[in-house]
Structure formats: C-alpha cells, structure tokens
C-alpha cells in the first residue's frame, strides 16, 4: 500500500495521534510525580506506532480490546483526552465515572471494550466480540491488543484455536516490547512466538512496530482478510516502552541498560521516524508538524486542567453499577 495510497490527510492524522499519545503520557508521568494521580499507570510512550497503525486501519464501528498499558489504544481509537484524564484522576466526568482508572478505561461510543488489568484477560472478550460480529453479520472486525507477556496465558491459545476454526474476524496484536514487567521475555518464552499462531493455521506478520506505515499496511491486510471471512491474523509488533513498567519503576538498570533505552529513543523513535518520512515524501513540512505539536500540547494541557477541576463522584456512586 504505502504512504501514497494512505493519503496525506490520514498520514498527518497518524502523526497527530502518535504525538497526542506521547504528550498525554508525559502529562500522566507528571501527574504521578507530583502526586496528583492516585495509584499507578503503565505508559505507552515508545509504542505509539502500534496502536496508531492498527487503529487507523479500523473503522469507528470496529472493536478493540486493550491492556493495562492501554492509554495509547484508547486515544488511537479516538477517545476524548479530557475524559481520559478525568478517569485517571478518579473524577466523576471520567470515562468510567472514576470507577475504572488507568487500567480499565472503556469507551463504548468508539467500541473500545476496555482496558484490562489481567494479563491476557481480554483475549476471550475480543474473540467473543469477533464471534458476535460474525454471527450478527455486522462486518465488524476486532483488534485484540496484548503484550508478549500474555503469551504465557493459556486462554490465548484456547481462543486462537476457536478463532481459526470458525474464521473469526479478529487481529491478535502482540506488542512485543521485550519485557514482561522486569524480566526479559526471552527468559520466560520458549521456542518461536511466530510458530504458535501458525500452528493454529493463523497467518502471522512479523513487524517493525516502530514503523507506523508498516503496521498500518499489515493491519489493513488483516482487516481485509477478516472482513472477507478469511479469519484471524496475528500481528507480531516489535517495539519498546521508553519508561519503566509503570510510572514508579524508575531504577531499572538491573533489567535493562541505559544504552539500550537510549538507542531505541534516538534511532527507533516512531514519531521521529514518521516525521522524517512525511517530510521526505513531501506530505508535510516541518512548520505544519510543529504546529500540530503545539496544538496537541494545548489539547493535553486543557485535558489536565479539565480533569483537575472536575468533581469526584458522589458517594452514592459506590454502590451503583454492581448489577445491570
């Protein structure tokens, strides 16, 4: 496909969304460091091209399921920055009325079925949504995001088997950022990752997850297959998280080196790479991209202010929504 078919509008939008995720996460880190945000958050910085590449290949009707590191997926699916910050601060205006927090944002309007704090916890939900889409003949596709850590969870294999058997319209998007929390994935992952879905007859694409164009192209092919009734695809996206496992994971040289972090940031930054590409292809000039950066900066600051000023939920909310 390539950048030409993508169209300049979409290409620039992908840039804007990646920058939004990056700046959003910078603010989240600040909110944590200044003790304004309760609890913890797992930042997506560095992995932006995966969420944006995949979600750009989806329509607003398509579903996604997300993970504990979910802010990027949520934003890439089109979520409102204000409502996300409000949720992160536990405020009534947040996506879940403050009940979910960072690890549980769901955005029903955009068919984001929710982040999940159980590793692998959304694999079943995503596959069920694909089953439902097929049964309802809705034409919808599902993107199921998970980290390579979820490869340890049996449920993933149970549902991939069914998805392949019944040709369900789903993309299994494995975000391999090299670490399960504080343990290099190679120490806990045997054999070949790619051969696992292949064993179920699921086609696999092994992707540079820092290259948004490559992810977008592969996701588009997978979506086309899914809509044509040809079943699931497994996208293995090689990527990297810039920050700690969560915002509090600051001293991390015992499991990965500063040099490694620096290398990814300088040589493989998805936003920088896309920026260079857009300029080289004559799709955008530096001035336009700088302007987008500034607009996003404003958007994100406004979101934080909104969230800070939003009220906490009323006490009576504690007992609502236990049952539907």
């Amino acid at each position, binding site marked *: 496909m390539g950048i030409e078919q993508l169209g300049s509008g979409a290409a620039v939008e992908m840039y804007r969304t990646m920058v939004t995720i990056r700046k959003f996460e910078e603010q989240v880190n600040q909110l944590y460091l200044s003790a304004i945000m309760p*609890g913890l958050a797992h930042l997506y910085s560095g992995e932006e091209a995966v969420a944006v590449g995949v979600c750009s290949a989806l329509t607003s009707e398509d579903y996604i399921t997300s993970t504990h590191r979910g802010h990027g997926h949520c934003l890439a699916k089109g979520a409102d920055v204000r409502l996300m910050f409000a949720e992160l601060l536990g405020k009534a205006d947040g996506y879940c009325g403050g*009940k979910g927090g960072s690890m*549980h944002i769901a955005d029903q309007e955009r068919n984001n079925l929710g982040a999940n704090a159980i590793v692998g916890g959304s694999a079943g939900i995503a596959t069920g949504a694909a089953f439902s889409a097929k049964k309802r003949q809705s034409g919808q596709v599902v993107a199921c995001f998970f980290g390579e850590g979820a490869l340890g969870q*049996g449920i993933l294999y149970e549902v991939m088997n069914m998805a392949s058997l019944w040709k369900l319209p789903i993309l299994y998007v494995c975000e391999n950022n090299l670490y399960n929390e504080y343990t290099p994935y190679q120490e806990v*992952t045997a054999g070949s990752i790619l051969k696992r879905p292949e064993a179920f007859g699921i086609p696999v694409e092994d992707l540079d997850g820092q290259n948004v164009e490559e992810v977008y192209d592969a996701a588009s092919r997978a979506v086309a297959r899914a809509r044509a009734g040809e079943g699931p695809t497994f996208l293995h996206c090689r990527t990297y998280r810039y920050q700690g496992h969560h915002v509090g994971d600051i001293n991390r040289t015992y499991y990965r080196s500063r040099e490694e972090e620096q290398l990814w940031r300088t040589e493989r930054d998805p936003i920088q790479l896309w920026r260079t590409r857009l300029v080289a292809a004559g799709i955008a000039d530096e001035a336009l991209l700088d302007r987008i950066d500034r607009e996003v900066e404003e958007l994100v600051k406004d979101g934080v202010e909104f969230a800070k000023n939003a009220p906490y939920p009323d006490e009576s909310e*504690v007992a609502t929504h236990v049952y539907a």
Partner: protein
Amino acid sequence: MSMPDTMLRETQESGRIITMGEAIREALAQEMRRDSRVFIIGEDVAEAGTPFKVLQGLVDEFGTDRVIDSPISEPGITGLGIGAAMTGLRPVVDIMFGDFLPLASDQIINQAAKVHYMSGGKLKVPLVIRTTLGATRRSAAQHSQSLHAIYSHIPGLKVAVPATPYDAKGLLIQAIRDDNPVIFFEDKMMYTVKGPVPEEPYVIPFGQAAIMQEGTDVTLVATSSMVYVALDAAKLLADQGISAEVINVRTTSPLDRDTLIRSAMKTTRAVVIDEGYQQYGVTAEIASVIAEGAFYYLDAPVKRLGAMDVPVPFSPPLEDLTVPTPERVVRVVQSLFNQ
C-alpha cells in the same frame, strides 16, 4: 498504622524490629537454608524480587535454580508446584496479586485441595502459595480484592492471614513445613509495618489466634490489616469508656474457635472485621461460630464489618468507603450498647 502498646513493650524487650516484608524474606531464606527441597517460583521473583521487593536478594544467595522467574502463567506455575510438592519438593509459588488466584483456582481447588483425601491419604501436597490481599492502594477492581474467604471455604486448604511481622515469619515457616497446601495472604499495604521479630526460626501453629489486647466489654475479632483497624477502634472506644478485647485470627482455616468463643463469653459482645467482601465472607463464618458457641452469654447480636459488596472502585473517595475503618467499627460497637 500504629503499633499496639503490647507490641511496643515486647519490642523494647526483644530488641530487634523489622518490617513485615523483611520478616517474610527472612522466613523464606532460613527455610531455604535448612531444607534444600524448598524453592520459589513466580513472576519477577528473581532479580526484581517481586514488584513489592519482598524477595529482594534471595536470588543472590540461592541462585536462579531455587528462585525461578516464571512466564505469566498462574495455572501453570500452580500446577507445577502441586506436582513438585507431590513428588518430594517444597514449592513456594508466588501469585503476585490475590486477584490472580482465580486464574489458578482449578489447580488450587480441584487438584491441590483434593489430592490427599482422594488418594486415601497416600499422596500429599506440601505447597505454599504466597499472595496478597488488601485495598486502598488505588489499584481498582482487579488488583485490590481480598479473596481469602473463597479459599477458606475449601476443605483441604489451609489459609493464613498474618497481621504482624511476628505472625508473618512464624506462620510462613509453619506453612512451608506443613504437609498441606497453604494459601498465605499478605496485605500489600503492610509490607513496611514494623514489629519485633526473633532472629532464630520459630513456628506459629495454625489455628492459634492471638489476643492483641485484653478487654471486658466487647470482642473485636479481626484478620490481617484489620487487626490494626480494630486496635485503633479499641483506642477510640476506650475514650468512651468501652473496653475492647482485640483478637488477631492469624489463620482462617483452621480457625481457633475456642479463643473466639471464650472471649465472647467473657465480654458478651462481638464484632468481626475483615477486608474481604462481606457477603458469604470470613466475617459470616466467624460470626456464626461465635453466635453458636457463645449464644447464652451474649448481650447483643454478633455484628460484622467486611468490605462493601461492590467491586473495588478506583476513585479514592469511593474506594475509601468500601473498607472497614476504626470509625465504622466504633459505630457498630456503639450500636451494640444502645439496645
């Protein structure tokens, strides 16, 4: 959390004060030195020493053969632990959050709990599962539950809920030496709580509650961190002229029924406090034990205070409503005197 006066006194006598996290680490290290069959397996247990850093340093002494980083496979490591336990080893399986126990629950409930009985006593499962409980860490619904009641419901399992560093060390060593599967629940908010702990290894037998403070008017029965809530409530009650006896349950299965019943007979009133959901919870079981055993001595119904029966909300003002607090305990106690 405040340290009870009795503990402070003991501390001054015994000299050494360490944290709950250190007590747990020391228990594991001493048992691993004593018994080469003991090993630890779990996610991020080796170099990382778990996210709570409780196991930090153990891999340096015992190596990655005995402090084993696993894939994120809770059913797998639990099942592996059961099989290893049945064939001569003494595994300590680390399940990072109690909320992940349900992933491994077939292994725990249908396998570990049943093997000894089903085999007519021929096979044994000397397995320890260390895990966490406790809310108010702003971790939301899937990282904040206290699920010990579920496992206390299952015959064949033993369940420990230590409240002090002293409990933690003695109960954990007992758990490792026990020939049964033991689920060991640590309150994740209590790892930095300090208390007196003897340096040499010792065991606290299961089914022995500890009377933390003697009193004459009401018995407060509590588990894990709720013991501190009860002690703080007792202080508030003392200001109102109500003398509370505070009992630390230590193990919910087996349960020290005698101590609970005897105390309630003496004080004639009892309130049970636990951080698990109230419905069908640990509080229900203990309250019924006391109601049955001390019925003719009671001056008021046995009351209970568990976590609110809702998934734990993220938003701090909501989350704070869901857990027992000293003030809430005091209100319940007062209601027993106004009847």
